[in-house]
């Protein structure tokens, strides 16, 4: 009997950032629950969700930290960028101001994560075409100039939501494969890598419990 969904090989930590009301929590909800959450309350501080996905035959657990967009939480949410493997930066295609703030979010993301962190730009609310305030081409150009991956998505219809999360994971996985991500480093690091189910168990011992202990 299989032990359910717990045999994943990697954990990737994501963070979702962007202005208030762009739909960060709704994107997360759509991704983890496959449902649209109307009347979503403002996020208080930071919340999180998980889902296990598969990339190139590997089970990967995404641990996603959804941050509050309100300015008053900035000081708190900044502390969550540490060790994120992926950052989803969200704006609302019907509100230009949320797009204009992207450079400030990007600065935070670049300063507070490590250079290998995959940053994915999401233009949310693509279902509201009639109210569009930011063109696809414009955002695409911004993404290209800054080396970001980019999609327009809709947390309401679910359109492209899955792709955004999965594309990010694929990119991270690719970075691991080509060695640009160092998995053996200490700290919460880039991401956790549980010893894979595929390899023989003894590999588990590659990291001896150290007696570094607590020096306080």
């Amino acid at each position, binding site marked *: *009997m*299989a*032990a*359910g969904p*717990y*045999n*994943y*090989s990697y*954990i990737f930590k994501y963070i979702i950032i962007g202005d208030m009301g762009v739909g960060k929590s709704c994107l997360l909800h759509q991704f983890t629950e496959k449902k649209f959450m109307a009347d979503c309350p403002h996020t*208080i*501080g*930071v919340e*999180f969700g*998980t889902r296990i996905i598969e990339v190139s035959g590997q089970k990967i657990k995404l*641990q996603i*930290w959804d941050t509050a967009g309100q*300015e*008053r*939480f900035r*000081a*708190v949410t*900044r*502390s*969550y*960028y*540490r*060790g994120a493997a992926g950052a989803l930066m969200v704006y609302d295609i019907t509100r230009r101001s949320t797009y204009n703030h992207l450079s400030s979010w990007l600065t935070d993301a670049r300063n*507070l*994560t*490590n*250079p290998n962190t995959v940053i994915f730009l999401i233009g949310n609310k693509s279902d509201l075409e009639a109210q569009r305030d930011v063109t696809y081409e414009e955002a695409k150009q911004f993404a290209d100039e800054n080396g970001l991956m980019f999609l327009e998505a809709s947390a309401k219809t679910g359109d492209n939501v899955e792709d955004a999360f999965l594309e990010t994971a694929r990119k991270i996985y690719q970075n691991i494969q080509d060695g640009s991500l*160092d998995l053996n*480093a*200490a*700290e*919460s*690091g*880039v991401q*956790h*890598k*549980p*010893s*894979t*189910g595929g390899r023989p*168990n003894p590999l*588990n*011992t*590659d*990291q001896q*419990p*150290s007696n*570094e*202990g*607590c*020096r*306080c």
Partner: protein
Amino acid sequence: MESMALHQETAYERLYRWTQGECRLLSSDSVEVSPLLCQAVQALQDRPVLFRYSLDEFGTARRTAVVRGFIDALTRGGPGGTPRPIELHSHDPLRYVGDMLAWLHQASASEKEHLQGLVKLATQQAGALQIYEILGHITEGVCRPFKVRVEQVLVSEPGPVILYKLANLLKFYHHTIGQLLGSDAVLLTTLAEVHELSQRMFYAALNAHAQRLMEKVELPPADLGATQSLNQSLALLREVLASHDSSVVPLDARQEDFAKVLSCVLDPLLQMCAVSASKLNPADMGVYMVNCIYAMQSTLALYEFTDQRLEMLAGQIEAHLDTIVSEQASYVLSRTGLSHIYSIIQQHQLKEGPLASIHGMDATTVRSAMSKFDSYLSSPDSLTMPQLNFLQSTSLRRTVHKRSTELVSAAYDFLYQAITNPSNGYKEPRSIVIRTPQQVKTLLS
């Protein structure tokens, strides 16, 4: 049958040894709870003691991992130094403590997931209580290194504003992490303790500030405006209130300590103003106090939960305004010479004979006072107490003007009635008091 039972026990024993060994290996940053381990834990449910031991073993391994991870995050940072070690920001108290708290929050969430993964199949034995107990154990190891660091920050006297923000931050995380752990987890107790300490340090810093104010009270400046120390204190209050405003703590909790902050700052300030005003004459004192309280009022008015205080301050301003108004009215009356006449009339009794025959009340004297009063009527601003120009609020200045002229015209009315009263023996009284009270009222309004 007996040997079957024996075999079974041996099997459980072996399973337990194996599980124990597996759990011990789970002390690295990364955890994989293998399907096999999940099944083993499930099977061990039938032997509650062995089951419990296995979970304890897991807890101990994870506890070690969490402590090591925390210390690494503090001192080493990530691969190649990014993210940078948390301690690198120890000069910035909010960032330093905030990063530690966020780390603890994330670690608590991850550990809970690991544990839930482990006991996923063991539905009979693993109750919420037991999970909370193990989780409490896992997160206990980091308490000491965390607490020591926060205490270091708090005692380094970062100033009331930072202390206040730290207290709010700690409160926020006590709530946030509290949603993951059981209520008696040591980590939560630790958070509650450091929160309380930070709050105590904050109020101590405010009190120390107040004490310094009282130690050397400044004299009121020549323009009767707010003193420098008042302005500084209000700037401090403004900063605290502003960070209160943006604080991450829910509304009702904020309201709670708001009253305390206000009284910590305002009460000593009011006291200081009163002491510093004590040697002034009534008019100066009134204007000075109104200016000071007005400054406090304008500071508070911008923030929430200050209504009660504002009302109290308004009451105090009102009391001082009464003094200023009556000072201004008597200033006019005495400059025009009417106040003397007024008090004679007030004290006059019938048996002393008609007013006109009393010393100092003859028609000539009264007429000359009235002519002075008339020139005041032609330019009422000429008789404004110099102090009134120092009253900073223009609307209060208008109030004083309005109410003091009302007093003056009421006094004139009183004189007019007395002098035009035939029993007081003035011949041609209308040549003495040329204007009717109504005319005076109109001229002054």
